[in-house]
């Protein structure tokens, strides 16, 4: 079933702030086996010019994807989430996320396309800090595979 094109350009309200915890960053860095001290040792991060430990580049996806959930689960849109795979992912950073950041995400539906029977949905998530400064933008493309003919 084709998705409703009128959703293109729709902007979803900013999420409640997500507070970035030092131990959450450590847990993520350990889960990907990354021993870079900038993620776990605040002195090492400060020596690089950061206010505190920073998060690995893809850490923010957990936050933006949760925000994108509002879009994906919007029943009006009609996306069959059981058939969804992650197509593309891109991040454009203004600065790295660091421990103590309070981040909000504003999601926008950038495009809806139909390619070979698959629905292709692109969502942009703008991440801002408590002062309203831009931190990173996440571009996520999801592909809902066409249902098999019955």
């Amino acid at each position, binding site marked *: 079933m084709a998705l409703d094109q009128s959703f293109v350009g729709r902007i979803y309200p900013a999420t409640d702030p997500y507070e970035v915890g030092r131990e959450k960053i450590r847990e993520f860095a350990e889960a990907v086996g990354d021993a870079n001290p900038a993620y776990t040792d605040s002195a090492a991060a400060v*020596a690089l010019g950061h206010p505190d430990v920073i998060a*690995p580049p893809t850490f923010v996806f*957990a936050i933006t994807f949760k925000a994108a959930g509002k879009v994906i689960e919007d029943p009006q849109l009609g996306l069959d989430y059981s058939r969804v795979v992650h197509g*593309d992912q891109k991040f454009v950073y203004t600065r790295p996320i660091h421990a103590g950041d309070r981040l909000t995400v504003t999601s926008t539906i950038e495009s809806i396309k139909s390619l070979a029977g698959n629905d292709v949905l692109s969502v942009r998530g703008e991440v801002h800090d408590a002062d309203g400064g831009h931190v990173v933008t996440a571009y996520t493309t999801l592909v809902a595979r066409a249902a098999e003919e019955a």
Partner: protein
Amino acid sequence: MAAKISYADVEVGTELPAQSFRVDRATLVRYAGASGDFNPIHWNEKFAKEVGLPDVIAHGMFTMAEAIRVVTDWAGDPAAVVEYGVRFTKPVVVPNDDKGAVIEVSGKIAAMLDDEARTVRVDLVAMNEGRKVLGMSRAVVRLA
């Protein structure tokens, strides 16, 4: 930002040190917890097969996280990465054995982007079982 590699010391074609990353079922469970992505295709073999996959597969975002380590380990400061994007082309199948799967990542400088900002484009290649698992895997990196 304090990258340890100087813009003046690299050119198009400069290779970054390649790395291999091992992933087994325990890795995926751990990544699920850390990332909050509990999709059962990443830990439940029965479910994965029911939806047409050959076996449990790694999170695409896990592969994306490993691939950029070739850049961040090289640059020193992870904040040197100002842009990073990938296309998920093939899944990394993770068998339930003591070996798991291996993702091999290499990278090289594809373009010198901006002499003022000292930015370069690094193209990454991520392979598993002889197949490319990421497409269009590119990072823009600000060097010293």
